[in-house]
């Protein structure tokens, strides 16, 4: 029996698993022992990777919608030619930017790089990723505060902290392997800041029940009290940061006496929290979507970074302001998708980078993008307004996942050509397309992913491709050829070719991986970037900023802050409930297209959209467990949900798992000012019992 070590392509932990394969069939899956991320364990999703496309098969051949609206099977050549001619027609008729693509954090790095080459370098179109939905905030926060999108930590820091602060993060459900490591750290005081008594809040030593979207005010108040009590690391601030005096002046108005009114947390409890942070010798602060998905997300993330900077909790074991990434390759997308910056980082107007990238890719500099893509929300807006006529999405399901998701349906109705590339032909988005390009799952792919702690790990095909089966990489190449890219694809023939191109692009950048060989990633412990040519790995757990140097021109980290914004929508007498969303269970992944194949998950998955409501609310509205309610949102949409009565939400709050189309239908189109990440976590709603 063959044993293939590969990387799980669900969440950002990117655990390694061993596939035991016989006769091109996976006999069983076991988590890889000794792999630094998950050392012999994983979650139910990773353990069931072998189920991909077993219950829900994908067609091997593409399908094109005919004039009667019926999807008809065609050959790959026909599909590539249809794609190329239609896209070119649209561009000729309406202009280059009348076409766009939406990619994902679930492709391999080489794949997202290649689609960036075809779409951005050659076609000159806009193309964003669904990483905009989860990590864009952290990207911008890191760039502004640290000078580069470079998260400081290694996962081992969770085991080395003596104080762990989780803000808007629910790792018990969303990142169970990370929680397993935090749980193993028995000495650490674990603190959860969340409006909801989440599964993580219940397991922590302390829960601070902050009002929805008041986290930024809480962080500014913490900063002010730390300063007032002189519990700050003056030496670190002076030598390694910028903007502290302005920050100090700014936060002075966040008076502890007002904190309960502003955040819902009493003065005494806030002082307790400040003391815990002060007394910690190794404090780590971790955040994820509760922070990232907001109308003022970047500044909130930076308010957390500021706490780490002012207390000197960065660049040392057990510390850090640590953004936990969402998808398995969000980090790859952030650095190598050619959507918001060059491969390996660097802005499109950076002359030195333009020259370097053109040289590596052996392309005319003129062909490289001159500006970042327009963000996801503008792509959708332009589809609705009719400026974009052709849309190509891959490995994502925005009909369900996009915020205010009826707007995505509206967008598709105006398209002349909507292409969906996916491992399923029945996703809510795939059902709407004109051309379906069926790709193969990660089980048949090769390439690499980059996890939340910057660890590159190899995706190795456990199964061989059969006749007519193409991976996303193959499809991008096929499209490129049909478009007439010719010699522009010569350096991209295989994922390995792409890897070496990307590697060259990183030379001299903070994410320099010129010391990594493609084949060295196989059967390895992964490699955290950076690793420069000539360097060797002495430690499997490497964190950044240990030399206290950041990537800004001054090498100092920056305190970034601004006035807390008003909520774009306020609760009112008519809309008295605050609607919040998040992950439902460990086994449910995003819009459930993949995890519906796992029996153990399906057995316990509630099929209809549901919400948690407080027992007092249930009593007031005369609701019993499993009753149906209509929730009407301030965004104008109303949907039905099943009631689950729970003390985890407060009386004026409602929590809805994000995996259902009904949930995202209720959320309004609000975005962070800087990252353009959607604000998935807050909208005022009203409820009515369905009679």
């Amino acid at each position, binding site marked *: 029996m063959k044993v293939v070590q590969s990387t799980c392509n669900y969440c950002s932990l990117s655990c390694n698993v061993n596939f035991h394969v016989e006769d091109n069939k996976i*006999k*069983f899956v*076991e*988590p890889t022992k000794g792999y630094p991320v998950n050392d*012999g*364990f*994983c*979650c*139910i999703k990773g*353990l069931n990777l072998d189920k991909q496309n077993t219950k829900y098969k994908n067609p091997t051949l593409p399908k094109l919608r005919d004039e009667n609206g019926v999807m008809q099977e065609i050959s790959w050549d026909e599909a590539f030619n249809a794609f190329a001619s239609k896209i070119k027609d649209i561009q000729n008729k309406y202009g280059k930017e009348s076409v766009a693509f939406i990619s994902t954090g679930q492709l391999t790095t080489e794949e997202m790089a290649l689609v960036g080459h075809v779409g951005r370098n050659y076609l000159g179109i806009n193309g964003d990723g669904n990483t905009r939905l989860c990590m864009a905030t952290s990207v911008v926060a890191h760039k502004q505060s640290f000078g580069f999108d470079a998260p400081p930590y290694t996962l081992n820091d969770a085991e080395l902290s003596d104080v762990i602060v989780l803000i808007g993060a629910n790792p*018990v*459900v969303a990142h*169970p392997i990370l*929680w*397993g490591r935090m*749980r193993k750290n028995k000495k650490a005081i674990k603190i959860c800041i969340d409006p909801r008594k989440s*599964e993580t809040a*219940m*397991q922590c030593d302390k829960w601070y029940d902050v009002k929805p979207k008041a986290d930024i005010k809480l962080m500014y108040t913490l900063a002010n009290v730390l300063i007032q009590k002189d519990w700050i690391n003056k030496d670190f601030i002076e030598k390694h940061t910028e903007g502290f005096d302005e920050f100090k002046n700014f936060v002075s108005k966040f008076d502890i006496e007002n904190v309960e009114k502003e955040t819902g947390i009493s003065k005494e409890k806030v002082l307790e929290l400040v003391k815990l942070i002060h007394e910690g010798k190794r404090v780590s602060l971790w955040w994820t979507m509760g922070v990232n998905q907001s109308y003022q997300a970047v500044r909130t993330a930076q308010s957390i970074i500021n706490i780490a900077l002012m207390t000197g909790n960065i660049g040392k074991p057990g510390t850090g302001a640590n953004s936990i990434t969402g998808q398995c390759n969000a980090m790859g997308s952030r650095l190598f998708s050619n959507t918001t910056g060059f491969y390996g980082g660097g802005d499109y107007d950076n002359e030195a980078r333009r020259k370097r990238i053109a040289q590596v890719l052996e392309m005319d500099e003129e062909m490289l993008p001159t500006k970042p893509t327009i963000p996801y929300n503008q792509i959708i807006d332009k589809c609705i307004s009719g400026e974009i006529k052709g849309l190509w999405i891959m490995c994502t399901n925005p009909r369900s996942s996009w915020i205010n998701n009826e707007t995505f349906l509206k967008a598709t109705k105006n398209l002349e050509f909507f292409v969906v590339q996916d491992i399923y032909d029945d996703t809510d988005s795939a059902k709407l397309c004109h051309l379906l390009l069926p790709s193969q799952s990660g089980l048949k792919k090769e390439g690499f992913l980059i996890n939340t702690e910057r660890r590159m790990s190899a995706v190795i095909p456990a199964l061989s491709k059969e006749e007519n089966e193409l991976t996303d990489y193959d499809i991008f190449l096929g499209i490129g050829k049909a478009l007439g890219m010719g010699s522009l694809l010569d350096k991209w023939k295989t994922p390995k070719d792409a890897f070496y191109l990307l590697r060259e692009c990183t030379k001299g950048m903070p994410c320099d991986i010129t010391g990594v060989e493609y084949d060295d990633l196989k059967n390895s412990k992964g490699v955290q970037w950076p690793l420069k040519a000539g360097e060797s790995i002495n430690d499997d757990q490497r964190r950044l900023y240990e030399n206290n140097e950041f990537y800004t021109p001054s090498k100092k980290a920056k305190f970034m802050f601004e006035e807390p914004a008003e909520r774009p929508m306020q609760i009112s007498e008519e809309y008295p409930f605050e609607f919040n969303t998040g992950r439902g*269970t*460990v*086994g449910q992944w995003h819009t459930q297209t993949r995890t519906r194949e796992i029996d*153990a*998950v399906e*057995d*316990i998955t*509630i099929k209809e959209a549901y919400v948690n409501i407080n027992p007092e609310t249930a009593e007031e509205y005369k609701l019993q*467990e*499993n009753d149906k309610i209509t929730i009407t949102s301030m965004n104008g949409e109303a949907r039905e949900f*099943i009631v*689950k009565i729970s003390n985890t939400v407060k009386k004026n709050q409602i929590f809805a798992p994000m995996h259902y189309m009904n949930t995202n239908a209720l959320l309004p189109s609000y975005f962070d000012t800087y990252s353009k990440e959607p604000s998935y976590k807050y909208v005022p709603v009203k409820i009515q019992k369905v009679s």
Partner: protein
Amino acid sequence: MRRIKIDRKKCIGCLTCTTACIVAHGSKDTRTRIALSSEGKYAPIFCRNCDRPECVYACPTGAMSKDDESGLVVYDKSRCAVCYMCIMGCPYGVLKMDKETQSEVMKCDMCKHTESQYPNCVAKCPTGAITLEEVSEH
């Protein structure tokens, strides 16, 4: 004897116990599982190693037996006739055959074969919904 005790209220349906069970046994199948109750609540189903084990009473070959010392119900595959009597007899519906070969009863062995000799599901449960507790036989 020690028995795995379940607190349904603490179960969050994370399936860590199911994962732990499969990983500990290096198999494709779990020896425990979680179901949804008729009220839509998570209901972990684990072998109780019953004091009066119907699976043992039903077994015609002695493959299922009650170990007097540990109090556990022990399954001996080499004596199993694959007659399904234990599966039919189990009042909790916890016993199943392995999916692939349908020749081995997936019976909890409290992870006695592992290094820790401690139920991996209990060790890994993040919420304390399943615990190992001493119970007096009666």
